[in-house]
Structures are given as C-alpha cells and as structure tokens.
C-alpha cells in the first residue's frame, strides 16, 4: 500500500490517547497481542490511532514499544476509512453501529451528503440513499448498553434501523429491559408492539410505559428474569391485541374446565382461523385406553362442545 510509510517501533507514550475520533470498531479482543494491527497517523508531536485502540486499554507500560503501521499525515479521510475498514473486514463484517460511526465521522469532518453517498457508501456496502445518513447518525445516540446488547445478539441492520425509525432511541425503560437479557426475537416483538400501540392509541412512549407499570415489573428483583420477561410480554400482547386477548381468555377459561390427563394434549388454532380442536393422546398401556374412554364422558363431551363453540 503506497499510503504507508515504513513500519515503526513506537512507545505507548507517543500515542495521543485523547484523540478518539477513529475509535469506531467494537472490540472483539480480550486484550492486545503484539501481532495485532495498529495503524497510526503522525499529527506532529504525537501519533493518532486510526486502528487498534485495544492497545490503550491493555495496561501497558508507557515505555512499552510496539510495531505500528503509519499512514501519511496528508491522507484524505476517505482513503483512511477504506484502509481501516478493509483491515477490519478481514476479521468480520461491520456492525451497524460501526457503519453509523463512520458516517458520523464523515459528516463531522465536513463532507457533504452527496460526497458521503458517492465516496463512503460503496465502502460500507450501502445503497446510495441519502436518507440513510440521517438514520445512521441517529443510531449514534443509542445507549452503550443497547449497543452492547444488539451487537452481542448479532441483531440484523433492520432491527437497528427499526429502533431509529420508530423513535425508540434513548429510552431508559428499554435499557432496563435488556438487562434481563431477552432473546432478540422477543425484543423485536416487544419494540414493534410498543411502537404500534403508541401509534394506534396516539400515546407518548413514556406515558405508555407508565400505564403498563413497566418499571415495576422489570425491576422486581424477587422474580426470575425469564418470569419478568414473560410478564412484560404478556401485558404487551394484551395491550396490542385487546379484543383477541379477551377472546383467548374466554377460550382458556373453558379449557381449564376440561380435566385433561397428563398423557393427553389439547390444541387449537391460536389465530382462530380454524374452528377445531386437536387432541393428542399417548397410549402406552390398556389402562391408558380405559382412561381415555372414561375421559369422554357426557360432561366432558358437553364441555368440549362449549369449547368448540367458543373458538
């Protein structure tokens, strides 16, 4: 690469640890290793890190000397980005937050939207849509805990952008919720439902969380995390689908009155498109057959008819 001057051997104290402009990439490493790439740029008296910020958190002595690749001080931003993104892509693809940071950096350096679309988007594998600039810049404002959660769960870019488009950024209630470590699909289901409820009821999100007694459930330390997640999910589903939930409750009420033995399961179509009951029975012994026969007495048949009618 012509952009590089010859490799240098530098010490930690020669790095400007306050210049974090290029601190773009989430750290994957457990610590610095001498074989890790460190790319720097000479700024005069000190060097700016462009890639390899792990070296700053490695608790190395100030005089510790390490090999670094140094980029020309006059190199344009776009070329710097091209280099460090290429190096990063040798390990893994970019997280959406990293794409966001790159776009943010380009904006802050004074690049026009047209130039960003022309020169930076192709590097980031983005379609040339200027509207994405605003979307990704908003992504920067996600809380650290949310960024950590979404990157740990390998959330697809659509999930990140949905939070942006739905105004679900900077919501403390959601930051509290992710501390319970819900699965990504539950998180997506809940955030989608929150957005849809707030639109349908024309209610602000903070008022919605309050009306759901959200914090009261999320912070109930005497309940297991998965129980708290389930309760949150239940109240969201009820609020999102009130009529359907009421109908389901009616069905559940009737179902509870049908004394199914342990080796039997009763299913029905949860969408209610089909008005049918499925009963699955495991029969191991003649006694199981006798019990099944006894189950279908007049009273049970009556209750099953009520159930079918209720569906």
């Amino acid at each position, binding site marked *: 690469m012509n952009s590089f001057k010859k490799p240098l051997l530098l010490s930690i104290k020669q790095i400007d640890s306050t210049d974090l402009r290029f601190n773009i990439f989430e750290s994957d490493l457990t610590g610095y290793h001498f074989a890790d790439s460190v790319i720097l740029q000479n700024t005069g008296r000190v060097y700016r890190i462009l890639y390899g910020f792990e070296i700053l958190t490695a608790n190395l002595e100030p005089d510790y000397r390490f090999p670094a690749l140094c980029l020309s001080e006059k190199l344009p931003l776009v070329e710097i980005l091209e280099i460090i993104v290429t190096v990063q892509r040798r390990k893994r693809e970019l997280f959406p937050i990293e794409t966001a940071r790159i776009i943010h950096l380009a904006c802050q350096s004074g690049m026009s939207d047209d130039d960003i679309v022309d020169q930076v988007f192709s590097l980031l594998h983005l379609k040339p849509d200027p509207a994405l600039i605003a979307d990704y810049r908003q992504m920067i404002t996600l809380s650290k805990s949310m960024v950590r959660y979404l990157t740990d769960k390998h959330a697809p870019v659509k999930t990140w952008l949905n939070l942006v488009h739905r105004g679900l950024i900077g919501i403390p209630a959601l930051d509290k919720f992710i501390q319970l470590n819900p699965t990504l699909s539950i998180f997506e289901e809940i955030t989608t439902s929150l957005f849809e409820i707030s*639109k349908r009821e024309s209610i602000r999100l903070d008022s919605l969380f309050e009306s759901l007694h959200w914090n009261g459930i999320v912070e109930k330390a005497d309940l297991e995390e998965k129980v708290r997640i389930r309760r949150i999910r239940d109240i969201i589903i009820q609020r999102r689908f009130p009529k359907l939930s009421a109908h389901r409750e009616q069905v559940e009420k009737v179902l509870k009155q049908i004394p199914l033995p342990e080796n039997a399961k009763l299913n029905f179509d949860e*969408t*209610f498109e089909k008005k049918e009951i499925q009963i699955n029975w495991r029969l191991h012994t003649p006694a199981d057959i006798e019990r099944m026969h006894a189950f279908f007495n007049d009273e049970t048949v009556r209750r099953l008819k009520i159930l079918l009618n209720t569906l």
Partner: protein
Amino acid sequence: MDDPVTESILSKFPRRIQKIIPDNASIDEDLDPKRILLLTRSQGEVVKGCPGTGEQYLCCNYQVINQTQGCPMNCTYCILQFYLNQPATIVYTNFNDIFTELKEKLKLQRKRFFRIGTGELGDSLALDASRRFARQAIEIFAHIPNALLELKSKTAELGDFLDLNHNGHTVMAWSLNPREIIQQDELKTAQLNQRLAAAGKAAEAGYKIAFHFDPIMDVPDWESLYAEVIDEMYLHVAPAQIAWISLGTLRFPPSMKDKIIERYPHTGIPFAEMIRGMDGKLRYARPLRSPMYQYIYQKLTSVPQPPFIYFCMESPLIWQEIIGRAPESNAHLDFMFAESLFHRFPGLLSEKPEPIHYDNGKPLG
C-alpha cells in the same frame, strides 16, 4: 405510432412530455409510476382468471381483463403498491386484439356464464385511456350472450356511458366505505355521495349495479358508520337492480405493512389487531371480523328481495357462520352467481345454468 387509440389518448395531453421508447427500453425507476403513462401493446394474454388467494379461502372464479395496470388514486391499503412492480401505469391500446382474445376464449365455454372485470389491476374508469376501452367493451359485451362486463371504480366518472347500448350486459360497480374511511384511507377518490350519485344515474340508464364493501375496516363506531352507508346505498339504487354485493375485510401481505407505515404515516391500518391467515395474508382474526360481517350482512338483507351477497377471499367457516351455508368449492360459488343472475334477471342468461358447466372451474386464460 400508427395507432389511432394511442394518438387519440395522447391528444388529450398536448403539454405533457411524450416520448416514444423501444419495446425493451427501461423506464427510470426513480419516477413515480402514477405519473408515467406507458401506452403500449400487449405481448401475451390479457384475459385471465383473477389471481385470488390460497386454496383455504373461497374464490369466485372471476375473470379479468388487465388492459390497465396501475391507478392514479392513493388508497393506503391498496395491494397494487406491492403486487405491481412496474415503473409506469401501463395501458394496452391494442383493443381489437384484446377483444379478439376475449371472444375466442368465451367461445370455448359457451354454456358457462362469466363475470369479467377490468378493475383488478387498476380502476376501470379513472383514466381516460381506461374509459375509452370501457366504452368499446360495453358495446362488445352487449352482443356476448354468456358474459357480464364489470367496470369497478372509486370515481364518479360516467362520461357518455349513459347513452351507450349495453343491453344489460354491463355491471357498473363501486367500492363503498364510510366517509371517515374514504377521507383517511382512500385518497384522491370520489366522495361517497359522488359514487352513489353516479351509481344512481347508471341504474336509471338501465345498467346493472354492483357494490363492493371491501375492505371493511374495524374502526370505532363501525356499526353505525356502515349502517349509514348501506341506508344511503339503497336510497340511490334499488336492491332489484343490484347484481351482487361483495364483502371483504381488510387484508394484505405482511410485507406491505412497513410500506404502508412509511408511505402513509397517518393511517391506523398497520396497527389493527390482525393475524396471519391461512393464505399468509394479515387479516382481522375471525372472532373480530365475523361480527362485522354478521352485522353488515343482516343490514344488507333486511330489504325485500335483497341482492346476491358473497364474501371475497373468505373461509368456508365464515360463510357458514354468517349465511348458514358455504359453497362447496370455487366452482360452486361461480355457479351460485350464475343461478342468482338467472333468477333475478330473467332473459340475461339464455338457459338455466347447470353445475356441470362450472365444475371444471377452468379460467378463461
């Protein structure tokens, strides 16, 4: 450009930019397809069976003529914005070819009575180009013994149709919804009173009339809103002149939801209580839509000699719950239409329809 139909259509827009492009040229996809009119000739079949939906729901074996593809209006729920992936509104100007195709196909099933519409992939009357086709189609169908033409619209455009010789073989149809829904979700369409006034005029001119309550929407106070529409409808058109009324609640593919949110942020449609039906489309759950159907159906049939009422893309279970019986198949539903028309409009069908001629259920296309 030696096409008189094309020249005639273009003459109405002398100030618009007109370009002749080769057959295989591409149109800039960044432009709004509702503002680009592509006049061209059809390459393949234009007369086909309605696509319908999954087999778990009943369809009526309706036939369509896709002469116009695209619509200038903006209904938030319109499936065309998902289904039609083309950069322009397309109008086929080779009318004679289309009518030849139609007549040849109808000849193959002479004993079967067909319902054929032009409003499947667009509005039958919204565009001048569509109305030109409709005008000719009305006069052609006047002499076709085994078919009815349906022109379905959300406009109040009648032009000079009132003077045409339709011979009772054209059904003028309007989609209906409460005013509140039209205002919110049927943008750039005619108002309810305009549509009903047009229907009244068409009825006076002897046309058969049809109405489509589709999509029926679960909005606050829906009972009184739909009751009002039905009352007004019957004030403008007598039940005896209505060939059929269809009922269908809101439904759309799940992938359309985000598009609706993006394109129409004011509408509440994407946030309704919907489930994924057996055909994969989002619909109101049956316990929610059944009461709506029940109410509207009872209101519609509360008049003497009510029209033939059917459900569009609905499960046999809904038919059973609301009407008390379900067609055995799509072919049977098609036959039920013919039977109703035979009894309610004497002389329309030359002979009594027999189920056997509908059992094959073969589309025209």
